[in-house]
């Protein structure tokens, strides 16, 4: 019996391909637009920052290294291995940092001959210019290994109009310098660098699993934002399909067929839940395949989706019950026209509105879409189920409350005309 109602509801949805396409196509288009356009504003996504850096070398480094090795035939009997020297060659190290995977998308490094220095300095598209003086590496090696001579200096020119980018370069250089200072200090005190290197590696790894875990990309963020928003339209669609059944008197036929109105009610509830789940499933799968938004914990994903679908089903029956009671579809139209957008904004579907205010965040989590969104984001970041249990509980309670209100509003026997 209930199955018949759900099956017929599915048939009605399928018979309106335009509406169906809109329901599923809309979120996907929005993910594309928002994911690309607003991506640069989001935390955890660096694609907005672009740094163009010019490197001017007066003398190739390997030439200097060879010169250095040649010049240390005898001194003080210190044994110097070629590989050690190459390992600490500063320019090579700098270049490998600048071009490693994490910075590749951000920093665009151009090696520029000295003759073009002025042109590059005048070119406003460059964020910074690093000029490496003649014998820099040679002097650096002498200073670091034997403590001879003065510490050589790099020349950094910053573009004042691109302060953030220039700041990134500056702090990179400062970091590098600190590491070298530390290394030479350790060498002085004859502490095994290897030990420390391992420790640092451990430290780095740990930091990753505590703070960053899986950073959420803008595509991931908007996949969730749009999915939790547009699934509310599914609730509205189910509600208006149900009201259509009253408007065209099919509901009366169902009652005369001696089907209990509570069977019908349950059918609407389950339709909301099932089609809500399907909707979420389709969008998440699509995002997984096309944008690579993958879920580390499928169980948690299913659990949140189930809890969320109770809320969606609850909204669907509530809209149905109120429109049946008022003989009018106004509530459903108001819901999909205005309420959904407001709740989506509060819940953070468009941008992380709650990031700067705990009050707004709390408020956002009191909307079903907001609670769903928080939970999904946590899962995407790699949190485990216990971190989202309050969101799940809220979704279930919210759904139950909707169902109860709907049941008490739904016209009782003999009231429908």
């Amino acid at each position, binding site marked *: *019996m209930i199955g018949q109602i759900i099956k017929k509801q599915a*048939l009605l949805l399928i018979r309106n391909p335009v509406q169906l396409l809109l329901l599923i196509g809309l979120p996907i288009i929005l993910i594309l637009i928002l994911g690309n356009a607003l991506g640069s504003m989001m935390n955890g996504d660096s694609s907005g920052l672009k740094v163009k850096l010019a490197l001017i070398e007066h003398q190739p480094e390997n030439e200097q290294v060879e010169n250095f090795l040649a010049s240390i035939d005898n001194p003080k009997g210190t044994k110097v291995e070629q590989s050690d020297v190459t390992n600490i060659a500063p320019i090579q190290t700098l270049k490998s940092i600048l071009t490693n995977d994490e910075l590749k998308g951000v920093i665009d490094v151009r090696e520029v001959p000295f003759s073009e220095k002025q042109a590059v300095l005048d070119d406003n598209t460059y964020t910074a210019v690093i000029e490496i003086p003649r014998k820099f590496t040679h002097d650096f090696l002498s200073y670091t290994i034997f403590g001879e001579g003065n510490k050589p200096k790099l020349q950094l020119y910053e573009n004042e109009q691109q302060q953030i980018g220039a700041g990134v370069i500056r702090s990179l250089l400062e970091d590098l310098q600190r590491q070298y200072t530390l290394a030479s200090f350790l060498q002085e005190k004859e502490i095994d660098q290897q030990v420390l290197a391992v420790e640092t590696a451990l430290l780095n790894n740990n930091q990753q699993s505590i703070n960053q875990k899986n950073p959420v990309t803008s595509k991931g963020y908007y996949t969730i934002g749009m999915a939790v928003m547009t699934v509310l339209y599914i609730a509205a669609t189910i509600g208006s399909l149900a009201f259509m059944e009253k408007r*065209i008197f099919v509901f009366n*036929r169902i009652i005369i067929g001696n089907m209990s109105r509570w069977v019908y009610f349950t059918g609407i509830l389950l339709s909301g839940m099932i089609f809500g789940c399907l909707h979420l499933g389709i969008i998440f799968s699509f995002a997984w395949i096309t944008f690579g938004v993958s879920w580390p914990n499928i169980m948690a994903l299913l659990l949140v989706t189930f809890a969320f679908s109770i809320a969606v089903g609850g909204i669907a029956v509530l809209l149905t019950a109120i429109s049946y009671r008022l003989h009018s579809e106004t509530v459903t139209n108001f819901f999909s026209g205005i309420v959904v957008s407001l709740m989506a904004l509060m819940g953070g579907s468009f941008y992380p509105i709650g990031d700067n205010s705990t009050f707004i965040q709390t408020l956002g989590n009191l909307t079903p879409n907001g609670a769903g969104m928080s939970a999904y984001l946590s899962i995407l970041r790699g949190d485990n189920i216990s971190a989202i249990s309050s969101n799940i509980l809220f979704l279930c309670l919210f759904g139950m409350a909707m169902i109860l209100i709907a049941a008490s509003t739904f016209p009782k026997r*003999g009231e*429908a005309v």
Partner: protein
Amino acid sequence: MLELVDLTKRFKQQYAVKNLNMFIEKGEIIGLLGPNGAGKSTAISMMSSLVEPTAGDVRFNNNSILKKPAQLRKVTGIVPQEIALYNDLTAEENLQFFGRIYRLKGAELKRRMDEVLDLIGLKDRRKDIVKKYSGGMKRRLNIGVALLHDPELIIMDEPTVGIDPQSRNYILETVKRLNAERNITVLYTSHYMEEVEFLCDRIYIMDKGNLIASGTKDDIKRILSAEKTISIKADRLNEAFIKEIKEHPLVNNIQVEEKEITIMVAKEVNIFSTLIKMAEDASLELSSVAIKTPTLEDVFLHLTGRALRD
């Protein structure tokens, strides 16, 4: 089989149905007549257990249906005044869905669907979406859905509204056949006199929520036994003539159409010569003046002073 006892429905201060008493015996075709707003649909909603009456009772095989409607629902088919079908589904899908609501399934459901589609003449259009049907075809399917579960009683609320004469005749013939061949009891609601005259054994006439006449066709026509109906025809009626007839003391009721005036006068009155003189005075050329056998339309006119259809 079905009995209405002082059935009353009040919306706010207005009575849609007031103290309606009615009975239907097995195998009968009963007509329920009344103009717009008479309360026919409201009465049907109550007797089909959709709406609870304000007062009174509906008894099916001597049991009140107000608390226990299941028995009635199981054997009754309702054809609503509105076309209550899913426009986006095919005829077959509609029948399938409502069949399942009536707990038919499998081969039984399929057999019933075939039978119904055959009966309403939509066999070759069964796979078409209802949206693409003509008005008459939708009406037929609207009836078909009510016949799916092989009901003993069908209640039809103006099943022929707004359709072409051909579909209308088809429907009337079908109803008659169902009654004759399967002894299905029918309550037929309409504001077309001809339909009710053609189909029904007994007739109830309602107006403004009240029952104003009931009985067999002959019973009802006998209401007019003290009067006679005269039809006056002319190519061009003029106002002066109409005004004079209206003001004539012997004329009880008058109904004016484009080329015809129908009046009622007491049986013993001879008004012919007067009419002809009035026509001359109004310089009107009459094409005919004749005594008509009374119709239900005339009965309604007699009882309410109004035409059934405005």
